[in-house]
């Protein structure tokens, strides 16, 4: 008899976990809340991934293909875990989908519920949703994915674009004190893409710190050295409307010690990551701990970042904190290994 393992969430982490378990001969139930697999990268149509600019489809599409063709994976689309109980060392879960509810017993569980993009409208000073030409990185990613890079207000290509970093991150005022890790690199990547495809369009990045950690630093150098992306030190305090249908960024150049109010055709907000409503929900449903940032809490951040405080329930991907896609995929594999070991031990 082969093991039964429940994977909650069909993003990069959950997909990789499911695929690996399936290859081990495990029966996997993959529960996905959307009607498609691929998580946020698919939902917001990410086009190219940093650091090597490979098409997102190479990664996400590949994982989806494997998951959908793998014989041992049963995917439940538009579904959720509506009830969850411990049963000795095993778990009884009710999977609710459009076609009805199904109760099954699982040997172990992998939670990969991911993150939500911070909604910049919550920070009113950036006038997101007030001005059409203020968008955020996920909107830009979608625009690029759809080959439709124009100003939303008039449909014309922009000539001057500002990127604002740390929107919804590192800010007590909005309640998120952590760094979202990837927004710097994503912004730099998008600036490069933009300059590559639209060389007439100037790119400015307003930053407090540029955190393109590790080898992502290469992208940051490339943006400046090969694409003339200009960086300006200072956080933007206000976005207002300007003359000739522009949006004005009001800020301080902290290096030159002076205030500025500069009009741009388009502003891209590097909104960060949040645990979203799904994290507290899954935390109470499964009886696992939530951390002070609104993400799921690992048992030990360094030694076992993929374990929850409940034996048999494992964590993978951005549900435990902001993460790059590659990290999520790695954690998916790590959680799969651990979930498998647990299942075999308690057979």
């Amino acid at each position, binding site marked *: 008899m082969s093991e039964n393992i429940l994977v909650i969430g069909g993003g990069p982490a959950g997909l990789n976990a499911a695929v690996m378990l399936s290859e081990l001969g495990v029966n996997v139930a993959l529960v996905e809340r959307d009607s498609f697999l691929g998580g946020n990268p698919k939902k917001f149509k990410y086009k190219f991934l940093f650091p090597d600019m490979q098409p997102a489809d190479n990664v996400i599409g590949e994982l989806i293909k494997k998951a959908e063709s793998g014989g041992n994976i049963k995917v439940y689309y538009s579904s959720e875990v509506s009830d969850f109980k411990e049963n000795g060392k095993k778990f009884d879960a009710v999977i609710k989908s459009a076609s009805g509810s199904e109760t099954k017993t699982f040997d172990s569980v992998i939670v990969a519920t991911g993150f939500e993009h911070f909604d910049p409208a919550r920070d009113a*000073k950036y006038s997101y949703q007030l001005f059409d030409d203020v968008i955020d990185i996920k909107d830009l990613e979608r625009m690029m994915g759809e080959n439709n890079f124009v100003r939303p207000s008039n449909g014309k290509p922009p000539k001057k674009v500002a990127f604002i970093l*740390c929107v919804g991150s*590192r*800010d*007590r*005022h909005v309640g998120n004190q952590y760094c979202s890790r990837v927004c710097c690199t994503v912004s730099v990547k998008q600036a490069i893409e933009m300059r590559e495809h639209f060389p007439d369009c100037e790119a400015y990045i307003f930053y*407090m710190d540029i955190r393109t950690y590790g080898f992502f630093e290469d992208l940051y150098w490339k943006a400046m050295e090969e694409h003339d992306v200009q960086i300006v*030190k*200072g*956080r*933007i*305090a*206000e976005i207002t409307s300007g003359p000739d249908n522009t949006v004005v960024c*009001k*800020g*301080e*150049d*902290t290096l030159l*010690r*002076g*205030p500025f*109010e500069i009009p741009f055709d388009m502003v891209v907000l590097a909104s960060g990551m949040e645990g979203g409503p799904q994290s507290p929900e899954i935390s109470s449903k499964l009886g696992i701990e939530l951390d002070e940032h609104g993400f799921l809490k690992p048992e030990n951040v360094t030694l076992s970042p993929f374990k929850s405080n409940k034996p048999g329930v494992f964590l993978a991907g951005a549900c435990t904190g902001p993460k790059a896609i590659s990290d999520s995929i790695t954690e998916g594999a790590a959680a799969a290994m651990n979930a498998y070991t647990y299942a075999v031990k308690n057979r």
Partner: protein
Amino acid sequence: MALEKHDKDKENSGGGRPVAEKGEHIVARHLIEDDNIKEEKNLVIDGVDVSGRWNTFIISRVDSDFDRSFFEEIKKTVAGSRINRCWQCGMCTASCTVTPLYRRFNPRAFIYMMQLGNLKELKKYIDVAWRCVGCYKCSQRCPKQVNPAEMMEALALVIKKYFPEEVKTKLKLDEEVKKIYEDMIIGHGRLDLAKLHTSAMQKSGRTKELLGKIERDTIFKMAKDGRAFSILRLGKPHNWSRSKEAIENYLRKLNTIENGEAGV
């Protein structure tokens, strides 16, 4: 080496080399402060006349230490207790109401100078450092909740303590603003923030924004929840005539003292 200073002006009173201004020949003179230039007008070394530009010396502008005791002092005050939180992002200056009017008023830079105890630098801003109008936009937006608005209060107190002489001589009162405040207090017994805001906007020529969406919404909101009318109903404070008299007495007395000191 014989070092000899003598009164050359007297000797050469009949003509000779014209005497240049101190540091006049330095090319980028505007970058160097007066106090940092050492130059003897008349100097003879070993019988060689090295007066004026021949002995010019510029004192190093390299700071040799951070004065942490100053930081500790600020941190102990109520208004400045969060000074250790600031990471210099510039959100405060970017939000500031005053900075567009007085470019040298820069809360972020002031907080940094206070963190490092750089009194030498702070001293240069005595004339503008008091300009905070207390709109609290910075404190509302600060990502680290430093509360820069109150930090400016701490700054003002520090300046008053360390540079009492400069405060007296360099600090120029904005008579117009003073008049607005005084008239409001003595006339009505209260500060009318709406009126203050209006006069400030008019003063900076931003009359168009007075009819902007935020203003309209605020007026509508205050009319709706009754605050606008409750202010009218409040009237003057209790026993205002006596308080008013006391304030006027105090101001008169203050004026007499100031005039007396100035020898008027």
